[in-house]
Every structure is written in C-alpha cells, then in structure tokens.
C-alpha cells in the first residue's frame, strides 16, 4: 500500500472519529457536561440498529432511520430525568453519574446481547471501492466521511442560523441571563442531548458497518472522541473534524509501520498536538 493510500485511509477513518466526537463536542460546548457514557451510547445505538434490522428484516440503513428518533427521545429523557438534576457549579456529580451510566449500559448490553462480537450486515456495498486519482478508496469509508462533513455542516447551520442554535449559544454563554430572556435552559439541554444522540446513532451505523463491536468497546470510542475534541479546540465543530482526521491519519500511518502501533500512534499524535498547541488547533477566540 502506498503512502498516498495510507493517507487517504487515515482521512476517511478520521471522518468516523469526527462522528464519534461531534455529539460529545456539542454537549460539552452547550452545557459544559463531559458525558463519560458517550462511547457506550454509540455502542447502544449500534445494538439498537442491529436489533431493529433483525426484528423487521430490513437493512441497517433503514433500521438506522428508525433508530434516530428513538435515540433522540432517549437523549431528551436522559437529560430531563437524570442529567439536568446533577448539572451545576460542581463538575464532579455529572462525571460520576455519566460514569455510572456507562457501567449500566455496558452491563445491560452484556446481559441482553452477550459478549459475542457483532457486525451490522450492510451487504455487498461493503466490498465496493472506487478509484480516486492515485488512490483507491472503499465506498463505505467514503460515505462515512461524507456523512461526517454533512453532520458538521448541519450542526453549524443549526448552531449559527436558527433560533434553537442561538438559544444553545446564549445558554452556553450565561444560563442565568438566558432565563431572563425567556429561555428554558433545561429544555434547551434536553434538545442538545437528543441531537447529540442522533449524531451518535449515525456514528453507530458506520461503526457497526466498518468493524465488529461488542458491549465493552464504548470507553475506547469515548477516548478517541475526547482526543478529537481536544485536538480541535473546545467549542469548534470544524476543529473537532480536524481532530478526528489527525487521529485517523496517525493511526493508519502507525499501523502501516507496525500493526501493533495503530492505537499508540493516535495517542502520540494527541500528546504531540497538545505540546505544540495546548488549547487545540482551533480554539474559540475568547473564553
């Protein structure tokens, strides 16, 4: 495999990591909540798609379109019933609660689906590839990457062009003053977590289509997502995409040198970026 191929594979893999990270970035940006269960919620989304697909005998893509509103509702309920109660000045309670949630989801999935690894049956499209100039890329990684760009574009539009997005930003700036403007922060947070889980479900589709998953892989996805968000700079969605790409490229180059170095190379790239740019590549102008 040529270096150009490796780079292309890395960039496309980075699209998947950006999808892992976008929901995390959104929730952190709006309510300063670090959701330690984000990776497990992605895995939960993958099992939901698998379950809907096999129960109704439909393709994972159709199943995902049913899973999206379900996961939105789950996010809303999760925020309104649980996370809103622990948000406050102290950042420890939300960390503990989402950590607990992570354990609950992992063990719940374990008893429901066993520890066997599963994969979403996406059919022949999995093997298709396209020649793209000097490199050849798989159709699924390309769709994944395109989806990541589309998700970031839509989230940016939502954030900067709609009334809901302005309410997100206003609440993020100052939740107390936002209330005096008639905004209900708890409902705004509910919408945000709902949207974050919609993005997580899109990520779950491509995660499950790309590789095997089992109930225990959530925390590792959370770690990649975290690194992507931090590399990109907190609060910037395009930065999160860039962060995903950095980790994806580092991992594929690491793997090309020695298959055992894949994961390590991603983490080294993370540390290297932080050494040079402690606030990430695209930090918000004023914070």
């Amino acid at each position: 495999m040529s270096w150009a191929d490796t780079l292309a594979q890395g960039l496309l893999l980075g699209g998947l990591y950006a999808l892992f990270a976008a929901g995390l970035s959104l929730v952190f940006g709006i309510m300063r909540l670090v959701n330690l269960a984000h990776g497990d919620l992605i895995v939960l989304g993958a099992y939901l798609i698998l379950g809907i697909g096999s129960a109704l005998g439909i393709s994972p893509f159709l199943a995902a379109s049913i899973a999206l509103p379900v996961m939105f509702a789950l996010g809303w309920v999760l925020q309104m019933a649980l996370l809103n109660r622990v948000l406050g000045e102290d950042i420890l309670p939300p960390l503990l609660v989402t950590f607990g949630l992570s354990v609950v989801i992992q063990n719940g999935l374990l008893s429901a689906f066993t520890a066997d690894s599963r994969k979403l049956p996406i059919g022949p499209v999995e093997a298709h590839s396209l020649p793209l100039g000097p490199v050849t890329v798989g159709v699924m990684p390309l769709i994944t990457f395109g989806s990541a760009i589309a998700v970031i574009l839509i989230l940016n539009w939502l954030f900067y062009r709609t009334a809901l997005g302005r309410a997100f930003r206003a609440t993020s700036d100052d939740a107390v003053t936002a209330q005096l403007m008639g905004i209900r922060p708890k409902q705004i947070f509910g919408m945000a977590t709902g949207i974050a889980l919609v993005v997580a479900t899109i990520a779950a589709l491509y995660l499950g289509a790309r590789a095997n998953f089992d109930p225990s892989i959530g925390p590792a996805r959370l770690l990649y997502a975290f690194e992507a968000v931090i590399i990109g700079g907190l609060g910037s969605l395009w930065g999160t995409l860039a962060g995903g790409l950095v980790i994806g490229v580092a991992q594929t180059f690491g793997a090309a040198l020695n298959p055992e170095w894949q994961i390590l190379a991603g983490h080294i790239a993370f540390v290297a970026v932080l050494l040079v740019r402690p606030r990430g590549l695209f930090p918000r102008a004023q914070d």
Partner: protein
Amino acid sequence: MAILSLQGVSKSFGALKVTDDVSFSLEPGEALGIIGPNGAGKSTLFNLITGNLRPDAGLVRLDGRDVTGETPMQRCASGIGRSFQIPQPFDHLSVYENLLVAARFGGAMTAAEAPAACMDVLARTGLAHLADRKAGGLPLLNRKRLELARAMATKPRVILLDEIAGGLTDAECGELVATIRAIHSEGTAIIWIEHVLHALTSVVTRLMVLNFGKMLMIGAPEEVMAAREVREIYLGLDA
C-alpha cells in the same frame, strides 16, 4: 389595577436581612426610582421581582396575579424585562443575535416578526451600526445600551434598570436617559435603581429609599430628597 405589587416581601442570606418587609405597588406606565446606599438590598429586590430569588416571606403580584412561585422564564413571558448593573450580554453572539434571542424566546415573537422588531430596537438604542459585532468586544456604553436593548426586545410591560447610568460620561448618560424617557413615554412601566440622581429624577415620578433592606420612604422625588432622614442616611450628612 397595579401592574406589579410586592406585599411584605422579606429575604435573608443567613443572619443578614437583605430585604425586610418591603411592600409597594407600581401602576401601569409609572416610573419608580430606587435609591439607597451600597448593600441596601436594591439589586436583591430586583432578583425577587424577576424570580431569580424566592422570598422567605411575602407575595409578588403581576396584574394582581400571585407569581411568587413562578420561574424567571415565566415572569419574563408575563412582561418583566431586566437590565443588569454589570452588563451580561451573550458574549459569543452578535449584538443583533442577542436581541433575536430575547425577542424570539422572551417576547414570544415569530421568526417573521422578530427581525424587524429587533432592528427597530437597535435603531432606538443607537446600536444599529454595531448589529453584526460580537457582543463580547463592546465598550461599556454600548454594553449598557445592549442591556437596555435586550430587555426591550422581550416586549416588557415593566422594565427593571439596574444602575444603567453608572460609569458613563455626562453626554453618554444624557443619550441613555433620552432613550429611557422614550421607552417610558410609550407606556412601559419602569423601575430604576440609580446612583446618578439627576439622571434618575429627570425620568421618575416616584422615588423609594432602601436602607438595610427596609423601605425607608416612598413618595415624590422632591419630597423624598428633602427629607432629613434621607439626607442623613443616603447622602451621609451629619445631623
């Protein structure tokens, strides 16, 4: 009927009584000034009116309806607007977006009517040329104007102004007072906490003096300012 009334409202922070049995009512379209030394409980009184604080005792009524248990969002929707002593704009939003948020959520305007209403408020507060600037970078006068503009965009029937003239030059203060007078002349009721007395007394028709959380006096500005106890406590004159 009074648009806003407080009845026996008290609030303590620990052993400190910051609001002590305050009762008054505000008629529709009236302008009431509040003065008092630092720490007299003026801003706390605003927090009790907006619902950011719940009183330990007493009632807050809007149009005769008890709203003591209502949240700040509900009271904003019922027509209470507020500007803060220390301006608190949404720093990462543009000036125009700050108003849009207030108009769409607090003023319950539709997406179609909000832009025109916001541009109108921007023009009246002298901010039109700064519409697309990030609120975070504005200097003090424009931050104060934005506080006022944002409160106006929620379409309030009572607007609470907290030391909006403080820290401004005479000329800047004059502009702001003209804007406030214009808002008042359109029928919006005003409660205004201010240390800059000549600005205050050029607008308000009644004046309240707070000291240690207690309402010391309320009445016509000239009567209040002439009262001996007010001069002693507020202006710090000996005997």
